[in-house]
Each structure stands twice: as structure tokens, then as C-alpha cells.
């Protein structure tokens, strides 16, 4: 008879069960109007973090933690840029969580994603599929790492904690394009948590422009010094770009001296520190280059 202590597969399985048992009380089931919507992660004693994209219009929720404790909660802040929403609980579970931030993730390492499903806590096990550098979301937020997990996930489980093999927190799960499972890293959540709790939002620079990548017409490439730019598809009324005279149809070539073949480059220039700062826009209009100075404003509330 094989010795159970010597059976590595049984050992792994037992360790996983034990890990889930120890961590499940951090998993929040977030219910809106009596229906479970998504998962969340108990981040601090009365703060649950979730993926923002599912909660665009929601103000109140009920939070049921993995150990059955339940709390009324309200959305204290949300940031579409980093896809982080913060819920404040009416009351606090005991003890408060003491999360360990995971070390630098590596492709191939095991990742355990917890979520809340009908039955209670649900578990996904996979490897870290890939780890990319910092990236910018469509909504302009900076995500510290692009961590893709090799697993599938239901919508209900989105927002739960993703743990490394040591039980440290890699971040929270979210569904990316084509339902790939991504991680919003712990560092990214931490960076927006304070502003979200104190002001409800994360301030980001705003010019009031709708942009689309465009090929600079060949005849003007020499004049422009580049083959790609961003065509201005729309200018927000009274926004910083409108005030400095940017018109729809102009092609944006550089921002603060940097070429803008991709919108992500503009987003990088419009981080929280850019608000109130002057910024130079070089544009192509009717075959001529022109330079305009705009003052970056704070992105208005949606």
C-alpha cells in the first residue's frame, strides 16, 4: 500500500484544500438587489476591492464573506482606468485581513484564484501564462504588470483574490478581451485605494479629444516627419483642447515633444500629475504644422 505521506499528488491536493480553507474568508460575494453579481476581495478591515467594470451604475450592495459573515456596503469609490472599485462595509469583520503582497510574478508559477459562486467559495488553479510590463487601459489607467492567467473564469468569480503558491496576494482577477483572465496587481490597487477612499475617484489628465490612429497622407509625411498620427475625431466643448483652438480633422503628431502613433502614448502623458500643467500639441492642419499650448484639466466625472 502506498504511503499517503509519500504521495505528492495527494500532498498537493491537501495543501490546496488547506490553503483555500485558510483564505476563503477574504472572498466577498457581492450582491446587488438580492442577486449575486461578482466577487470581491476583503482588502482591509472594512474595505472590499472589486473589478469596476461590472458595477458602473451601482451604489449599494450586500457583501457576504467566505465565512458567512455579511455586511451592508456602499461603493466608496471607483476608477474605470484601473478597473478598481472600492466598497466600504457597514461594520468590520474580525480579525482584519493581513494580506501579504506577492513577490514579482513569473510565468509558469502556480496561481490560485478564489471567487464566490452559488455554492460558496469557488476555486481556480492555473499557471501564470505570461507577465508583461506596465500597460495602459482603454480608460487611461496605468496597470503595473500585465499578468495573464492560464484559466477560465465565470463572470461571478471576477474580482476575487489571486494568490501565488505561497498564499501571498498577486492581485484581484478581472476578465479581459475575449474573456482572458487578467490580474489587477496588488500594487495597482494600492496606488488608487487612498484617493478612492478619500475622494471617490482618481484624478486623471484630460484634453477633451476623441482620437483615432491615422496614416499621415503621403504628401505630408515629409513635413510632419512621421507616417502616423492621431486624427481628432471630436473635440469636447469647452475642454482644454477646444479652448486652445484644436479642431476636428486635425492630425495630432506630438504631445510634449513625443510622437503619438498610438493613443496609449497620450494616456501616459496624462497621468494624475499632469492636471494643471501646460502641454504642447503639434498638429497637422491643411498641410501645415501648427503648435498649440493646452492646459491639462482633470477628467470630468462620467
Amino acid at each position, binding site marked *: 500500500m502506498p504511503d499517503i505521506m509519500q504521495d505528492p499528488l495527494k500532498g498537493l491536493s491537501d495543501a490546496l484544500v488547506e490553503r483555500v480553507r485558510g483564505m476563503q474568508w477574504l472572498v466577498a460575494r457581492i450582491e446587488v438587489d438580492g442577486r449575486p453579481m461578482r466577487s470581491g476581495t476583503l482588502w482591509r478591515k472594512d474595505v472590499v476591492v472589486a473589478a469596476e467594470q461590472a458595477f458602473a451604475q451601482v451604489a449599494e450592495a450586500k457583501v457576504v464573506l467566505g465565512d458567512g459573515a455579511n455586511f451592508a456596503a456602499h461603493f466608496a469609490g471607483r476608477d474605470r482606468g484601473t478597473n478598481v472599485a472600492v466598497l466600504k462595509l457597514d461594520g468590520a469583520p474580525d480579525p482584519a485581513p493581513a494580506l501579504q503582497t506577492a513577490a514579482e510574478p513569473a510565468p509558469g508559477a502556480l496561481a490560485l484564484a478564489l471567487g464566490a459562486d452559488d455554492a460558496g467559495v469557488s476555486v481556480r488553479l492555473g499557471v501564470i501564462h505570461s507577465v508583461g510590463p506596465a500597460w495602459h487601459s482603454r480608460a*487611461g489607467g496605468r496597470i503595473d504588470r500585465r499578468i495573464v492567467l492560464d484559466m477560465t473564469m465565470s463572470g461571478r468569480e471576477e474580482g476575487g483574490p489571486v494568490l501565488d503558491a505561497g498564499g501571498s496576494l498577486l492581485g484581484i482577477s478581472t476578465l479581459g478581451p*475575449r474573456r482572458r483572465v487578467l490580474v489587477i496587481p496588488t500594487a495597482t490597487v494600492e496606488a488608487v485605494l487612498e484617493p478612492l477612499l478619500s475622494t471617490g475617484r482618481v484624478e486623471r489628465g484630460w484634453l477633451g479629444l476623441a482620437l483615432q490612429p491615422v496614416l499621415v497622407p503621403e504628401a505630408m509625411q515629409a513635413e510632419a516627419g512621421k507616417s502616423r498620427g492621431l486624427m481628432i*475625431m471630436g473635440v469636447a466643448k469647452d475642454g482644454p483642447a477646444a479652448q486652445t483652438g484644436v479642431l476636428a*480633422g486635425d492630425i495630432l503628431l506630438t504631445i510634449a515633444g513625443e510622437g503619438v502613433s498610438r493613443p*496609449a502614448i497620450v494616456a501616459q502623458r496624462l497621468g494624475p500629475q499632469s492636471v494643471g500643467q501646460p502641454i504642447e500639441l503639434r498638429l497637422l492642419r491643411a498641410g501645415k504644422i501648427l503648435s498649440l499650448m493646452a492646459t491639462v484639466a482633470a477628467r470630468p466625472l462620467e
Partner: protein
Amino acid sequence: MSVVPSRLRIAVVGPDATARNRLAMLVARSGHEVVELTAAPDAILTDGAIDSLPSAPAVAIGAVEGDLAGRLPPHASPRQIDAALRAVAAGLTVRGPTPQHPGFGSFAEDGWPVLTPREIEVLAALSEGLSNKAAARRLGISPHTVKFHIESLFKKLGAASRAEAVVKGLKRQIVEI
């Protein structure tokens, strides 16, 4: 092989009498016979939970719990309801279109082709349903040039028709900053 009759026996169930009547009328107008749940229907139409174990495949409208053969969105059209009833009666599974959630992604992740300013203008004209001639008039260029840009759009977007070019072109990412 059994053939699905064109006139089906449909049981309509649901918690609300008004909604039930509306669905029953709709089913009758599609040429089906509305029967009681106990009268061996070919299919069941419901907009609420089914208490007992369904005796026939059921089509649910809106969010209804349970393992059901057919699921339609709350605003399904009469044609869709009719098609779904026929399909489940024939033993098929029916699901409405799932809303395409783009997911949390980055800028220009898909590497969409980069268009020229003129191609963007021509695409805008196509999306309004303008003919080549009308597009040419609006843009102040010849119809021949419009045709040239459309061919280039087809190639860049991998489209075989004007409609496909418009659909694919609409997916391009406009970023608000």
C-alpha cells in the same frame, strides 16, 4: 424521424396574468395552439420560474432560473420567440446573443489597420448609406476616387461588402482623452 408540425401546441406559464395573456396572444398569432401545461404541449413559453418539472422543452424570456432549453433576452421579438419555440420543440438548444462585453483591455490591443484620413471620411459616408456618387459629392472628389478608397478599405479591413466594411470599421477604437 419525426417531423415538427408547423402548428405547435404551446403552454404559456408565468407569474403575471397580463404578461401571460400577452405571450399567449403572440403565440396564437404565430399560428400555434395555446394549451394547458397538463395537455402534453410541444413546448412551454415562460417569463418566470417553472414550479414543477417541465413536461416539455421550455423557452424562457428574461432572467429565469433553471436548466432550460431556450433562453431569450427580455425584449425578444415575436419572430425570435416563434423561432425559439420551433427550435426547442425540435430538440435544439436556443440562446439569445450574449452582450459582447469588451473586457478590461488596453488601447488598440487588436492591432486594427490604420486608415488614412480620406478612408475614414469615405467609411463615414458608407455608414450613412450614401452611394459612391453621393459620397463623392459630399467629399468633393470624383466617384472614381471614392471607389479607389473603398477598395483600399475592403483590403485593409478584410471586408467583402460595404456593410461588412462599415461593421468592421465601427469596431475601430476611438479613444477619448
